[in-house]
């Protein structure tokens, strides 16, 4: 137990400088990330085009390190909080749009799902504080 704690401590210590370097880019205060479509509470039949909205910042290709720009990530049914010191995960619940896409065709199983957008920087890290959209709930019937 104690060893585990120490490992965590040393890991945290070791990761401090790199984390501080890799992330923590501030987003402009008036930046706004939102869903153009669908809206919270929508009921949708089958697949749909999910459209991402971003105000006061630009969308760019992942890897391009321009000021005030980032790329979209769509979190589907994700409940764990984001770790600001890690790249946004990549799996079937964390969809990446690193080519600068602003919309995507989404197909989900029947039932209720939550959707949330997160803007990532050139290295897929969230901004500091994270720029996220409202978490919406939709129902697929």
């Amino acid at each position, binding site marked *: 137990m104690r060893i585990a704690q120490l490992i965590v401590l040393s890991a945290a210590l070791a990761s401090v*400088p790199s984390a501080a*370097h890799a992330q923590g880019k501030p987003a402009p205060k008036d930046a706004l990330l939102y869903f153009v479509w669908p809206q919270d509470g929508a009921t949708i039949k089958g697949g749909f085009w999910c459209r991402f909205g971003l105000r006061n910042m630009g969308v760019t290709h992942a890897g391009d390190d321009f000021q005030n720009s980032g790329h979209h990530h769509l979190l589907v049914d994700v409940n764990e909080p984001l770790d600001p010191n890690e*790249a946004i995960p*990549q799996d079937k619940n964390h969809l990446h749009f690193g*080519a600068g896409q602003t919309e995507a065709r989404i197909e989900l199983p029947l039932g209720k799902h939550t959707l949330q957008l997160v803007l990532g920087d050139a290295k897929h890290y969230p901004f500091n504080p994270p720029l996220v959209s409202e978490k919406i709930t939709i129902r697929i019937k």
Partner: protein
Amino acid sequence: MAEIRDIKFGRSNERPREATPRRLAAIVAADISGYSRLMELDEEGTHARVKRIERDLIEPSIAEHHGRLVKTTGDGFIAIFDSPVEAVRFGIVIQQNMIGRNALLPKHHRIEFRIGVNLGDVIIEADDIYGDGVNIASRLEGIANPGQVYISSGIYEQVKNKLVCGYESLGDRKVKNITEPVRVYRVLADPTAFHEHRKRRENILIFLLSLTLLVIASGALWYVLQQPNGKLGKQASAPALPPVEIPNVPSSPAPAVKQPAPLPPPSSAPVPPTPQAAPQTQAAPSVTPAVKHATPQPQSASSATPATQPVSAAREPEMNPIRGGSFIMGSNDDVTEKPTHQVTIKPFAIGKYPTTVHEWNECAAAKACGFVATGKDDAPVTNVSWSDAKQFVAWLAGATRKAYRLPSEAEWEYAARGGTQSKYWWGDQFEPGIANCKNCTDIATTEQPVKVGSFKPNPFGLYEMGGGVDQWVEDCWHKNYQGAPADGSPWVEGECPAHVIRSGSWKNDARYVRPSNRDNYDTNVRYPTHGFRVALSP
């Protein structure tokens, strides 16, 4: 004087050509890249700016370098100079001035010249010049990148010892409508760019150094904290390299951080060549793979090609031959893996491990891969896009003259299953410690990615087929197997925006290490858990 007049009249009278005045000249052709785009954006503004540049910069500079403006075209101009040195100097002056003028403008409003300089015999008339030499100059301009000066070998021979700047040979280029290929050089005029590059490199080095120091310091701190209070004084001076750093790592020799990089000893060169791709010489997992790679490559020794071909550099990855066969691809565990279907695989070979940082950096050193990977030499290379992986296999295939490539998705799954049809290669139940996935091992995230070969091989002797790093395959992404080929070939069509990744990574949970699991990612985007392994056609 009278003669010249005659010639001018001669043109209209179609008199014989031999009387036209010819001379040797350094010809400068320039044009504005993306001129029509600029005009579209702001026609009047662009026109006014171009005219101003001509008046304030180009005309005075030509005069200053003892040249003559032959003509201006809508988006550029042609000038001739008596001296090649002056012509190249003029090109550099224009480009450097334009950098200053463009500095404050947004990217899409910048006016950037492409400049070509050639030495040639030309026919001079009052308002134009003619000849091959002019055509070549404008072809050079056509292939130059915006903001750069390209020169022909004739110019290069004249200026190389007189103008202090860099020249990069771009080799012989075939240019339109000119039979002989032209040797092209790029002028690297800007010493500040060089300095900037170096400064950035220094910054990175300083950062890495301080990072290493911090890691060591925190490691030492932890070590000190870990000592039972009584022993503290006695042991504090011992070198802080605890083999206990990762307790309970099953089956893997503690992937302790400070292992010396297993570079091949230079003395190994005269060792008699061993057959390459030494298949199935099952390395105990504790042997670092990179050391095994160190056997010198027979091919480079025997095919003693002259120094023109830098073939010798490529060391081949360890490959396991896979016998062909049929299997049921896919599963019913996820919509993307349906429908299950039978696929027949032809014999091929696949990398025993994912491609390592060391292997990648040989490609980077040969300038054939886009970036230098950081991390331990024997760790899998990460943060590669599909296009990066393709560059690597293309380089490897060229350097070894063997058909190295990415595996197809079907080949990957066949190899990952290792002859089994179960959910995991070891059975239907998940077992911790066999694969490198999230919450499947005791490895601290800061240790990741751990070196290749740290986990048990599957029945085909392949390591980390599932977990570790995600692995690119050749196939375009399709959301399920509806219409998939049954012959094991990659499923591709034209340009696809996303390609398939397999294996799951150390950041994905146990569901992702199933051999049938599949996911996708944008073709040209890098992500920190993405790597690949190579395949080889017989």
